[in-house]
């Protein structure tokens, strides 16, 4: 065997002490830079922003939903914002058919009707039904990321399974909002029926 590893505890501690000390110093030095590097470590929301962009491309809004051909697509983020600036950054210079994106942060109680896409954060789980109700009949694509949201009336719900993002679509809810969801999107979706109790 390797005799080099035959160390008694005391010797070991003597060896370890400087290593630990150096480690701490290095760590502190790295600390500051690590923070800034890490603030963008939200790959989940980077990917989810990509999903939202793709949904915007693959969903058809009814005629009249946009005032002009170059009216922006307004994305509302309701409740606690999990994107933390990523979505603004990603969509800043993007456009779909001459439409730019406008991102708005919204709180419960504010008027949601100006949105074309409404991302409903997990923090709004308790008043999801009221949110859905307030948008009834309006062409707003509601997107959630909380288990059970699609069943409760949200049109698209993002779910993370085995570290990968999947999505559910509630077709009844899409129909009510008069949104046309492309077959390409549906082919990848998990179709969720509206739960009977919430359909009302």
């Amino acid at each position, binding site marked *: 065997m390797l005799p080099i590893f035959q160390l008694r505890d005391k010797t070991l501690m003597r060896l370890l002490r400087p290593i630990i000390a150096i480690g701490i110093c290095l760590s502190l030095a790295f600390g500051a830079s690590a923070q800034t590097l890490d603030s963008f470590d*939200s790959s*989940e929301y980077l990917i989810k922003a990509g999903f939202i962009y793709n949904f915007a491309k693959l969903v058809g809004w009814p005629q009249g939903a946009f005032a002009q051909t170059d009216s922006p697509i307004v994305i509302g983020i309701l409740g606690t914002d999990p994107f933390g600036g990523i979505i603004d950054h990603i969509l800043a210079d993007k456009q779909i058919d001459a439409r730019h994106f406008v991102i708005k942060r919204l709180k419960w109680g504010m008027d949601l009707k100006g949105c074309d896409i409404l991302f409903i954060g997990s923090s709004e789980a308790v008043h999801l039904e009221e949110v859905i109700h307030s948008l009834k009949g309006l062409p707003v694509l509601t997107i959630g990321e909380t288990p059970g949201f699609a069943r409760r009336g949200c049109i698209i719900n993002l779910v993370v399974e085995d570290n990968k993002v999947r999505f559910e679509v509630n077709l009844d809810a899409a129909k009510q909002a008069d949104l046309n969801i492309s077959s390409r999107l549906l082919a990848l979706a998990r179709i969720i029926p509206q739960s009977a109790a919430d359909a009302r």
Partner: protein
Amino acid sequence: MSSIPKNNISLMASAGRILLLGMLSVSQVANVSASGPRSPQNVPDDPTKLSLEDLMNISVAKRPQKVADSAAAVFVITQEDIRRSGAASIPEALRMVPGLQVARIDENKWAIGSRGFNGRFDNKLLVLIDGRSVYTPLFSGVYWNVQDVVLEDVERIEVIRGPGATLWGANAVDGVINIITKSAKNTQGGLVTAEAGSEERTAESVRYGAKAGDKTYYRVYGKYYDWHPSIDTTGATASDGWHALRSGFRVDSNITTANSLTIQGDIYHDNFGETLTVPSLTSPTFSSTYPNNGYNSGGDLLGRWTHSFARSSTSLQMYYDRTNIADPTVFGDHESVYDIDFQHDIHLGENQELVWGLGYRSIQDNNGSSFTVALLPDHSSLNHYSAFVQDEVDLLKNRVHVTVGSKFEHNPFTGFEFEPNVRVLGTLTKEQSIWAAVSRAVRTPALTEEGLQLNEAIIPPGTPPLNSPLPVVEAIFGSPLFGSEDLLAYEVGYRVQATSSFSLDVTAFYNNYTNLRSAEPGAPILQGSPFPTYVVLPFVASNKMSGGTYGIEPFAEWKVLPRWKLSGSYSFLRMNIRKNADSLDPTPDIPNGASPRNQFYFRSSLDLPKHLEPDLMLRYVDQLPSLNIPSYYSLDFHIGWKPISKLQLSFGGQDLLNSRHLEFIPEFINTLPTEVRRTFYGGIAWTF
């Protein structure tokens, strides 16, 4: 966890106790270690350039977005943690959990405890594999050598330190370990693994998963391993070799969106060796030591049906579990467990959730005795009934989350038991939370504590101070008067996500135990069978020990760089267990000195380009004064490399700092403890 579990329940395709534990984990996974940022390099800079199909193929890092929200000391071992640690078995994986004591006795025996009372026959820890309780009614502990799964198919191992009795019932006293395997849907395709190491161990496993029809997935597996004998304290080869073969399957079906069904089963057989010392009536030594071989075999079959309604969900789980222990010279046992559990979760309004459940468990035991170990009666049938109810309420705009509940159960030894708890979680800021809990738990008697006679040692005739003309057999006796052990536990915890890269989780506890087991001397008995005549000096199981334990368990995780993570934990444990004033138990205070007072675990995980993953782990375990085991450091490394997507190679070394060391000395049954040696190993995993 105000909003998460409420909406999660309908999707949680697991039942019974797992359902509730699942909730804990959903929030916890985000915090603790997360099914991590494995390969940040494949996350694009601009995701809008990717199609939905591409986006769906990218693994995302669950960012530690908010402080975990469970009012309990939870630690989650993820699949990534298992792979990167190089753990070859479940006990090895458990070594990374703060607050647990894990010690290897020999190649096929482990002592695993939570917050003290560690031992081969530790009886205060409940272990579940996919919702199936694997504790044995024989001694209320776990046969660690027959609990195994294909480690690559484990989704996560959730460890809750402290009482979990309200949900899991008696014996979830100091902790619950919940081993959860992946759904068959997530183990599609083939996997072949092979591993070999310098400790002359080899392990192979094969798994294949496929789809049957539209909504049904299944997998089957086989696993074989062979551990060659280790060495004893003199350096001589011991007799503790071990080889085992196991096989099993799992089927998951989403019959309709509201109904899901899981059926799974396993079958196994293993052969083990040990060096055993047993008392013998033959002079002059009055004991005999010999290499002993035995085998374990068994199997299980479990079915679980989950149904979700709009605002509630139900689950029904049934299983059968059979364990055969054949140790021809000491003890043989066959036990069959039939278990059925029902659970119902109801959302009462927006801020309240009620969970209740019913359970029934039937145990059939048949055993065969020897001069060393005898259990009376030689066959028994036990029925356990239980019910529980728990309510969770959000108060003060979801800033305070209160959980109140109790388990009520009836067992054949002590009748009714109730195990209430109250847990409060307060969210201080988005990044910080505190929690506190008070719980009562009981450890109900095991079969051996009711009807055992274990002949421990023989005092030869004429030995002072007894100077008995006949051999005196010191024997441990069970007693029908033995009652439950009680625990009242107080816990507090604090969690903070200090920066986006640093998180800290601290738990402190004080446990007050009463009616712990002691061994009270009884009146000597004259016995003449087998010949010759001898005196039995009985030590009878009684409830005359009590006392407190306290400890603190901080765990921190720091992402120094996006591809470099450091994590570490420290476990401090102090035990003050004493015999009551009226106890005459002359045996030394074993529980206090058999669990380490200080332990730490430190790990560095790097993600290098080309899927190269080097990990370094350093562990310190304090001395065990009552067992004369010195403290030790253990340094392990593991390097994982994925040269192509279907192939995973690994290479590692364990215990680099010591050529060999002893970790534990077993209690009750005198088997020879063997040493853990420095080991190097390599492995390969091929997916197709």
